[in-house]
């Protein structure tokens, strides 16, 4: 039972990580690099959108991702009863 629990916990964690890393990839490599020329046609306040992602936006998303991941993991830890006491 204990081993099955640890396995389920681990695969739930992997799923979370995968989801967050997709966003991580899209906001930096996607919007900031691969699609930068396309997005630069869109004006976002005084910025070209692609340029904004590369020099500002990606960093804000990174920060949000870490905070959300830390929160979901805290919940996951409790849910599978593996949290620190």
């Amino acid at each position, binding site marked *: 039972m204990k081993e099955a629990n640890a396995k389920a916990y681990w695969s739930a964690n992997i799923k979370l990580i995968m989801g967050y890393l997709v966003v991580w990839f899209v906001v930096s490599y996607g919007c900031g690099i691969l699609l930068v020329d396309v997005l630069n046609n869109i004006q976002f306040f005084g910025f070209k959108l692609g340029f904004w992602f590369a*020099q500002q936006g990606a*960093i804000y998303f990174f920060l949000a991702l*870490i905070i959300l991941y830390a929160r979901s993991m805290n919940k996951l830890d409790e849910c599978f009863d593996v949290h620190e006491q």
Partner: protein
Amino acid sequence: MDVQLLTYLFVGASFALYIGIAVWSRAGSTKEFYVAGGGVHPIANGAATAADWMSAASFISMAGIIAYVGYDASVYLMGWTGGYVLLAMLLAPYLRKFGKFTVPDFVGDRYYSSVARTVAVVCVIFISFTYVAGQMRGTGIVFARFLEVDVNVGVVIGMAIVFFYAVLGGMKGITYTQVAQYCVLIFAFLVPAVFLSIMMTGHVLPQTGFGGTLVDAQGNDTGVYLLQKLDQVVTDLGFREYTEGSKSTIDVFFITAALMCGTAGLPHVIVRFFTVPTVKDARISAGWALFFIALLYTTAPAVGAFARVNLVETVNETAYEELPGWFYNWENTGLIGWVDKNGDGIIQMRGGDPFAGKPSYEGSADSQAARGEYGQRLVSNTPTDNESEVYIDRDIIVLANPEIGNLPAWVIALVAAGGVAAALSTAAGLLLVISSAISHDLLKKTFKPDISEKQELMAARMAAAVAIVIAGYFGINPPGFVAQVVAFAFGLAASSFFPVILLGIFSKRMNKEGAIAGMLVGLVFTFSYIVYFKFISPELNSAENWLLGVSPEGIGSLGMVLNFVVAVIVCKMTPPPPEHIQHIVEDIRVPRGAGTAVDH
């Protein structure tokens, strides 16, 4: 009060603070010396990580590089922040659960092999020394400019301060001084940025001023966006558009990846996450670290853009004799050089280099004979045949910003203290990693396992002292290739540590044969590629000769891919790791049961 006196006061006060903290937080055990007893609050650890991470280069050079290359500098902005996402999700919490002192500790234990441990130790020492030489030099330069002492005297003062708190306090001393240093450096970076932002765009936040419209001297909105104006001004002068890049997409992609994975694999960053009390704290501490770093990293591109506009408006088409004082000061320190190609006494800024390389002068700054018709220092480099006349070193953008923007004297003094804080905090973190690699991984774990804790602590202190002396030596006699070898640190970290640690956590099946083979292939490939293009045949270092169009700066990502592939293939062909190793992996994946912490 004059700038000089204020600067002495600010820098002196910050030193007194660091020494005070060092005395208060002396280390009494090896655990305190290596990982601060594991009892550092996650927010404090975040601030310390940020100070550790942001070096003299981030503080002094980055905004300047952005100001000159525009979009191309995005690789640094994304690369040096995106790595924290990888750290928070893929490495930090599990390494904290593992609960040892160093990165080679993990590599050696997880791969049950002293060969793996030794390879890791060599990488740690090489990466860290590459880095630390630059920091010592940075301290010297800040001293030289602001306190008017010799660069070498500056390096020695820096060494003495670091010696005091790193040798005495170990990780514990370093952590709390780094928290203080973070406060000094971020304050010093933000104050001039906010002033400039208000002056140029009317926005208090540089991050929104960056996308705002310019205001004129009376504070009236001109309706022209800063970036629009910037693109306009620089293309008029024959430069490339600021918001467009010049590097190929594939190269930008690979450089960003190498910097991200390199960040996540740098030993002095990883080791900071050994110092927090719990696994939960390790995760959120990475978030705090990125928050503190982002304060500077989202401000820097705004500062770069403000500075570029300011610089062009102040210097271009101005007579040499009518320039503001900072121009002459920096010309005297050798970071500005002007050749009056058309003989009109007026400075023309145009696209292209005015002459090849950095300026060398006819004589010293004091010599009247070595000055031209208008009082400028005569440059002895052969001029190029374009219209561009002035060389302004990127490094002065941040340091001269307060002067360029006419800010009060105390702001200038503050920037000096900030620059010194940035250089010292990073140097200290690196020196600690070097000393623990020697005293813990080599001495205790490899050569003399029977030494007592007291002896090990003594050895750690001695190793730190020796490392400081060596770093100081490199600071005073910088090897000519310092700038080139920075690519090494990230490339090697990305192609060695990052894959090995990642596989060690996420693959239970990964064995020592796979890990060692992968690490060696990644290392040798990355190392030889960089050496080939940077040292053996620098004349071939251009896009058409690069493998897949990837520059030496980005090659670490390919090395990393090779490392992964080789490790997985070799692992499939060799026996699985022993039972107890598989249990270790199972154990580090769950948070419960992380080692106890020492309260501070």
